[in-house]
C-alpha cells in the first residue's frame, strides 16, 4: 500500500508552487500601495475637525475590523457586480477575479493603516508642525518635511504587522477561484485525486513562514537605519 505521508511530494511541490509566488506577492504589493493611499485619506478624515468626516472614517474602520476576510471577499465578489448591474447597468461579470481580490484587501489594509497613520501622526509633538509653519513652510510642506518623516518611525512596526496580515489573509483568494500559490496547491491536490494534501500544505506553510520572517527582518533593518539617522542628528 502507498504511504499516506510521502516526503518526495514535498520536494516535487516546491518547483510547482514557486512560479505562483510572484502572483501572491504582486497582489499583496498592490493592496498595500492602494491601501496606504486610502488609509492616508481616512487618517486625515479622523484627524480633521469635521464631525461627519470623523464618523465616516471611524465607522468604516469598525465595519472592516468586524468583517471576516472571507465574508468581505465574497461580499465584494458577488455584491459589486450585482450593484453595478442593478443600478448602473454595467456588466462586471467578466472582470478577472484578481480585481476583486485586490479591492478586498485594499479596503481591509486601508482600515488598518488609517489607525496606524492616525496614531503615529498624533505621536509627533504638535510643536514640530508649529515650528515648521513658523519658519515659513506651508502646511503641506510642514507635513511632508517635518511631520511625516518622524511619524514614519512610529508607524513602521505596525505597518509590518499590517503587511504580514494582508499577505496571510490573501491566502483566502483561492476561494473565489483566483489562482495564486494556494489556488495552485489546490489544483495539485485535485490532480493527485485528493491525496497527499498534507505534504503540499506543509510546503505552503513553509513558504509563508519564510516570507513573514523576511518582512519582519526587512522592517527591523529599516527601523535600525532610521534610528541611526536620529542618533547623529
Amino acid at each position: 500500500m502507498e504511504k499516506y505521508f510521502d516526503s518526495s511530494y514535498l520536494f516535487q511541490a516546491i518547483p510547482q508552487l514557486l512560479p505562483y509566488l510572484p502572483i501572491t506577492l504582486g497582489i499583496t504589493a498592490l493592496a498595500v500601495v492602494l491601501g496606504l493611499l486610502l488609509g492616508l485619506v481616512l487618517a486625515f478624515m479622523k484627524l480633521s475637525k469635521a464631525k461627519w468626516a470623523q464618523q465616516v472614517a471611524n465607522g468604516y474602520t469598525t465595519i472592516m475590523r468586524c468583517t471576516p476576510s472571507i465574508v468581505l471577499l465574497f461580499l465584494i465578489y458577488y455584491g459589486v457586480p450585482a450593484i453595478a448591474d442593478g443600478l448602473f447597468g454595467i456588466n462586471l461579470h467578466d472582470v478577472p477575479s484578481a480585481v476583486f481580490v485586490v479591492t478586498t484587501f485594499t479596503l481591509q489594509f486601508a482600515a488598518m493603516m488609517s489607525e496606524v497613520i492616525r496614531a503615529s501622526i498624533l505621536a509627533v509633538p504638535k510643536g514640530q508642525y508649529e515650528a515648521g509653519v513658523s519658519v515659513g513652510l506651508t502646511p503641506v510642506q510642514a507635513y511632508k518635511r517635518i511631520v511625516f518623516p518622524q511619524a514614519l518611525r512610529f508607524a513602521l512596526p505596525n505597518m509590518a504587522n499590517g503587511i504580514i496580515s494582508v499577505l496571510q489573509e490573501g491566502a483566502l483568494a483561492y476561494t473565489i477561484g483566483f489562482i495564486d500559490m494556494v489556488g495552485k496547491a489546490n489544483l495539485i491536490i485535485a490532480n493527485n485525486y485528493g491525496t497527499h494534501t498534507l505534504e503540499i500544505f506543509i510546503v505552503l506553510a513553509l513558504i509563508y513562514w519564510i516570507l513573514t520572517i523576511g518582512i519582519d527582518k526587512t522592517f527591523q533593518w529599516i527601523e535600525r537605519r532610521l534610528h541611526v539617522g536620529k542618533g547623529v542628528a
Partner: protein
Amino acid sequence: MDIAFFKQALGIAFSGVPLTLLVTVVTLIIALPVGFFLTLVRMKRIPVIHQLIGIYLSFIRGTPVIIQIFVLYNSIPLLIAGVAKGKFDVYAIHPIWYAFVIFSFGMAAIVAEIVRGALQTVDKGQLEAAYSVGLTVPQAYRRIILPQMLTAALPNLCTATVNLVKATSLGYAIALPEITLRTKVAANAGYHYVEAYTAIFIVYLLICLLIEYAFHKTEQRVRRYQGGIAC
C-alpha cells in the same frame, strides 16, 4: 435583492451563532492558561524548551490561519491513528473537536505574545515586593501581577478575540457548520449569494460590536484600581 430570502438567510446565520460562540469560548478557556504558562516557561530561558516555544510562536505568526487549519486537519488524524492503532475510528470525530484543537493551537501563541507584552508593563519590583512579604509564586502572580497586567492586556485580548471569531468563519474547511457555512449552503440552492453574505456580514458585525462593548466594560472595571478621580 430577494428580501424574502434575505430574512431567511438572517435567521440561518443567527442559528450558527451558538456554535461560533461555543468554539470561541472553549478556545479562550484552553488558550488563556496555556498561553500564560508558555510565557512564564519562556521567561525562565531553559535552553531547548525556550527555542522550541520560539519556533512555535514564529510558526503561528508566520502562517495564514487557513494553512494552519489545512495542515492540522490533515495531520491530526494521522497522529491519532498512529497512537490508537485502529482501535479508534478517526473519521467519526465531530469537526467541533478539530475546531477546538486547531483554534486553541493558534490562539495560545497569540495569548503568549500578549501576556509577554503585558508583563513587561509591570515593574519588576512588584514581584520582588510580593515575595518579600511572604507570598508564594502563585499568590504573587494572582494577587499582584495579574491585576496590574490586565489593563495592558485587555485591549489586545479584545482584538485577539474578535480575530478569533473572524477566524471561525474558516470553519468551512473542516466542515464545521458555523455561521458562514450554514448560510452559504442555504444560498447555494438559489444562487442568493449577495443576500446570504450580507446577512452573514450583519451577524458578524453584531457579535463583534458586542464583544468590543463587553471588553470596554471589563476594562473600565479593571482600571478602577488605578486610582485617579476620573476613573
